[in-house]
């Protein structure tokens, strides 16, 4: 696996810039895709956001500072884009007079064609959708991506202690949901 430092060095040179960006895409595109997919659930929305994220990365990578990890920077961009997308959907839902036209992630989960899990996994996803957005973010990055609290802290700008508390509360809520809901 190519190192982030090598990608950045090649990107800094005009002649190897495209090669560097292809290396970056191959290394991170799936991680970024799944990070976004777990937040917005729908594949098509995820696909749009993945493209937006990497276009931003292309524009801003030359200004990237080496004092932070490249993948935490990518996660931060992806997280911000996803949260912005979800907030926009919520605002549309709030101003809509048609209640059935609202944006509901649970409905999206139920309607998505690209789901291959069993009942327990579907139940887990439903439980995750009952969490506040930040708890869901922390749980996803800790549970699915196995990121360290320090890394999550670098992405979200939250203290490690706060992240531990968020994850603990999220786990308790999910366990309760799994035990007590049908």
């Amino acid at each position: 696996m190519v190192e982030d430092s090598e990608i950045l060095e090649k990107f800094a040179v005009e002649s190897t810039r495209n090669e560097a960006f292809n290396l970056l895409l191959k290394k991170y595109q799936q991680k970024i895709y799944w990070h976004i997919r777990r937040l917005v659930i729908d594949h098509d929305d995820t696909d749009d956001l993945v493209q937006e994220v990497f276009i931003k990365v292309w524009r801003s990578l030359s200004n990237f500072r080496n004092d932070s990890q490249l993948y935490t920077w990518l996660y931060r961009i992806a997280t911000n884009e996803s949260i912005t997308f979800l907030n926009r959907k919520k605002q549309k839902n709030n101003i809509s007079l048609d209640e059935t036209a609202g944006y509901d992630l649970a409905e999206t989960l139920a309607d998505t064609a690209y789901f291959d899990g069993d009942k327990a996994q579907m139940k887990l996803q439903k439980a995750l959708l009952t969490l506040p957005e930040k708890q869901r973010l922390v749980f996803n990055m800790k549970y699915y991506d196995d990121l360290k609290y320090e890394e999550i802290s670098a992405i979200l700008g939250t203290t490690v202690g706060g992240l531990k508390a968020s994850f603990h509360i999220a786990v308790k809520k999910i366990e309760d949901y799994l035990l007590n809901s049908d």
Partner: protein
Amino acid sequence: MELNDRDIDWQKDAPTLAAIGKAIPFTVPAGYFEDLTGNLNSRLLIESMRSSSQGGFKVPHNYFGELSSIIMDRVTVENVRVLAPSEGFTIPEGYFAGLSDRINTRIEESSAKSITPVRRLFTSWVSYAAAACITVMIATGIYFNSDTQNFNQQLSEVPDQEIINYLQAHSTAGDTPFIIETLNPDGLEQVNPDVSADELEQYINTTTL
């Protein structure tokens, strides 16, 4: 905080969750990730063309360098126009507010001063017409007055017997009330008291229509 310092072993706290496993239940369309790099590169190519290309158009040398100062100059000119619509001239405060009143006052004053007798075109013939009417009226009055006097004079010269004969021959039923009104009560005493009422009635019936 105790909770924050504790790196919990969540698998013990949530055995149901731990039993589900970490497998991602979502899927993607077939070949999605194989095509993703190519799709992203295509999208980036479009984006870079969109940002760098201006559809073949060019601008003069240093156009954008000077554009901001040109726009700011225009803005300044527009601001001056808005602030000074009189093109630099100023007027006393409230000048236009009382202008119409002042003009009307001046007009009234000048009208009062310059009332001069104006000879009217119609004065002469109207006065002449009025004089003519008065003359005609006076003449008519004199004429009828003199004619009436002349008539009464001529009538007084007619003998009474002729008048009686005339009335007997030409009087009508409408003359009776007039004759009765103008009868002299003294004359009635001259009527022969031997005449009976029947003879009198017969006389009236034969002599009146």
